[in-house]
């Protein structure tokens, strides 16, 4: 059902731009016809899933029409014995998770706000979650896609088999393209069996223990499903914070391996001077989702969040750089450092909305040396146009421009939104 509110342009702001119209087609054919029409009339489109990752990217140069894909949301094929599933792109992550869980399977997409977030939006946003070092990235689970291209035609790539080298793997290009090459309408995944046991371990870090604790966790011989060093986020994320923050480790596997991993973790943390590790064995999924939700959680209009990716070996220097620059710009800093993947999530905030904009703009300028690759994950609409959303430009930008020109010659799809204002 589409309510009037769901189609009200004022809920579809990007920066300070609003679309003239919002559409919510209920079929791929209807979506294709809409896109074809917009393309012919040079009306710029932004696709919306659940809107949870719309904080990514530049404010588009032109923005005439928002198209919600959320009504195109069926599970199309699921033979659970094959461990493959095909869903329409508007399917929410929660609905996908429920369909899979009914047969003891899951997909570690680990994107925030799973009851709103859609499969299409999560993949188009290039989301990378904390369990990817253990299970692989979304790009490793996608075995096929269909997209509506700028001319309204539908093109598929890949298939419903887990191993496939037939033709170019165009799915890889659509993932992370933020709707600038087409709209994902169907995604085929390979799935995983749900681990028998899940356990979260929370350890507050006493003063001066952080460096060693992180090093010991990184060196665990039984690798955890996720390992994070969190500082701040006390409202969003469970666990008592110590003077050096807290370490949160997700263990998944057989009961015996989780037990062995727990013993190893406790002893590794103990020898780093971290005496206390609290274990949570019930509702682990819910607690873990709360952690993931924090990645884009904003404090009204007085915070902004960046993601810095890179090697695990230099995550701590990047964390330290955030501390330095935030301090010099008088911004409060909270971080989630992913010990396994090397991601650093940094939320910057001020006590009042009024102070944020100027401090954030100077932060964004200052961070360009030490944190060149950091990207904006979420920021208040009023500030967005003044931030460098993507960070350092890739060496292959000219090729990316050529790719955009091939797939969207009229610049119908979110013009100016992408890297290098593509």
């Amino acid at each position, binding site marked *: 059902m589409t309510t009037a509110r769901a189609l009200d342009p004022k809920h579809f702001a990007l920066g300070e731009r609003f679309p003239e119209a919002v559409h919510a087609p209920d079929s791929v054919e209807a979506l294709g016809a809409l896109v074809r029409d917009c393309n012919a009339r040079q009306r710029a489109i932004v696709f919306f899933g659940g809107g949870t990752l719309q904080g990514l990217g530049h404010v588009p140069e032109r923005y005439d029409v928002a198209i919600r894909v959320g009504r195109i949301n069926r599970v199309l094929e699921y*033979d*659970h*014995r*094959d*461990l*493959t599933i095909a869903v329409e792109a508007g399917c929410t992550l929660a609905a996908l998770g429920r369909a899979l869980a009914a047969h*003891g399977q899951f997909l570690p997409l680990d994107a925030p706000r799973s009851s709103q977030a859609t499969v299409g939006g999560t993949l188009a946003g290039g989301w990378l979650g904390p369990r990817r070092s253990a299970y*692989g990235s979304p*790009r*490793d689970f996608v075995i096929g896609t269909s*997209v509506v291209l700028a001319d309204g*035609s*539908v*093109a*598929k*790539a890949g*298939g*419903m*088999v*887990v*191993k*496939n*080298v*037939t*033709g*170019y*793997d*165009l*799915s*890889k*290009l659509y*993932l*992370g*393209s933020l709707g600038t090459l087409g709209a994902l309408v169907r995604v085929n995944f390979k799935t995983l*069996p749900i681990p028998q046991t899940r356990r979260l371990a929370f350890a507050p870090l006493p003063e001066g223990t952080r460096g060693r604790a992180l090093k010991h966790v990184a060196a665990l*011989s039984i690798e955890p499903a996720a390992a994070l060093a969190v500082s701040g986020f006390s409202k969003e994320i469970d666990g008592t914070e110590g003077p050096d923050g807290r370490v949160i480790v997700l263990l998944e596997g*057989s009961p*015996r*391996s989780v037990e*062995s991993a727990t013993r190893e973790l406790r002893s590794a943390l103990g020898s780093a001077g971290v005496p206390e590790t609290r274990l949570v064995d019930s509702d682990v999924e819910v607690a873990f989702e709360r952690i993931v939700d924090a990645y884009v959680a904003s404090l009204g209009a007085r915070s902004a969040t960046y993601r810095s*990716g890179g*090697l695990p*070996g230099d995550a701590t220097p990047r964390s330290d750089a955030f501390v330095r620059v935030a301090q010099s710009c008088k911004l409060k800093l909270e971080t989630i450092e992913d010990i396994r993947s*090397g991601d650093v999530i940094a939320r910057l905030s001020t006590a009042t909305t009024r102070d944020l904009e100027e401090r954030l703009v100077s932060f964004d300028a200052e961070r360009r040396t030490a944190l060149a*690759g950091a*990207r904006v994950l979420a920021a208040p609409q009023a500030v967005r146009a003044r931030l460098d959303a*993507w*960070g350092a*430009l*890739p*060496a*292959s930008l000219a*090729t*990316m421009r050529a*790719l955009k020109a*091939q*797939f969207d010659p009229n610049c119908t799809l979110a013009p100016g939104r*992408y*890297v*290098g204002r593509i």
Partner: protein
Amino acid sequence: MDASSGAELRERLIGALGDKNVRFAAEDLAAYAYDAYAESSVPFIVAAPSDARQVSAVVRIAAACGVPIVARGAGTGLCGGSVPTSGGVVLSFSRMNRVLSLDAANRRATVQPGLINFDLSRAAEPFGLFFGPDPSSQKISTIGGNTATNAGGPHALAYGSMSANVLGLEYVDSLGDITRISVDDAGYDLVGALVGSEGTLGIVTAIELRLLRAPRAIRVGVAAFENVEAASETVSAAIGAGIRATALEIMDSTIVQAVEAHYHAGFPLDAGAVLLVETAGEPDDVAASERALATLAREHGALSWRSAGSARERDALWASRKGAAGALGRLAPNYYIQDATVPRTRLPQAIAQVEAIAREHGLRVGNVFHAGDGNLHPLLLFDRRERREVEAVVHAGHDILVCCIELGGTISGEHGIGYEKRDALALVFNPNDLAAMLRLRDVFDPRRLFNPDKIFPSGAVCAEVLAAS
């Protein structure tokens, strides 16, 4: 190519690479006319650059002369992907075969494309690391070739094919420019687009790869069955039950007979099929998974189950599995290996149909395949000197592809499309799908000088297909 422009190409290449590294004598060229596919075509010249700058020079010179460039690793490809079907320059990576760096702490390595797959795992071993993709050709095939075809191997089941393990590339584009790209770059995933593009988009000159931590325990077991169907049903059941194996490989009796005669690894000779099962990880989990698999095998009528007692026994079983195709030389002068994938629950049907197709065409077939991934490799035995047999193989190969597509599968799981299967691509993808792929081609290689005649349907078929779009 006329004599004067040929001479100019030769002179310019010699100028850039030195005369030792440019070959054009007939006997040298003959060696580069083939890969492991049946058809051959002699290149005009072979260039063996030593680094990315020389690759760039070769590309610029070839482009200026308007001749095709075909990159070549070890020439083990089975689909004619490195056969220079339109002549031109073959770019050999024989001199670019080093590990450039190995960062054990961050578990990555950067290598040159000519590095042999197996040599990477050997270099990583002292650090307790290994490289995931292990095509059966891994002792001769190169990382560059593996990247071009998005190669897999038995362990792709657990560790993914090349695309899941390539983190970055350095490549030379059609203008001769050298670019470095990474999966961590902001923007489109060009690494994902280049891996598996079979040399048609750019010439890769360095590859950054993910290394994996060696598992603490590995176990290999062998179950014997009366027939391939029973073995396949065991695999389907294991996948459906969520038992995590790192490899699930089936060999039928034809293959088992041949490999036992050659390797003496101890596979049961009286079985209709054997299932090779590997589990790896934490010792407790590995033992539990193996027990679960052995139980499932028995429930599906396994005649016997044996666990490899030692690392040596395990290696012997693997060596014979990976040498299976080669061992068939005992049974027939030639074999043709097909590569197709079906949804894993369709394996028993696919195998039954493959056998029916072989019977219908009067051919013997051996089946050895990556059952856990639904990736079939029927080996059709024939004698190249018998015209009837050659024709029968071509038709049977095609019928197998059609049958796999009808079962919901596709025409290549890991070998690539190359020259051989390009017309069959139109059986899988409609004109819109192919047009989207050609847009990507146009971005990277508008003049079609990188490995022409590959992947996309041949002129007539392609025109027909695209006219319909």
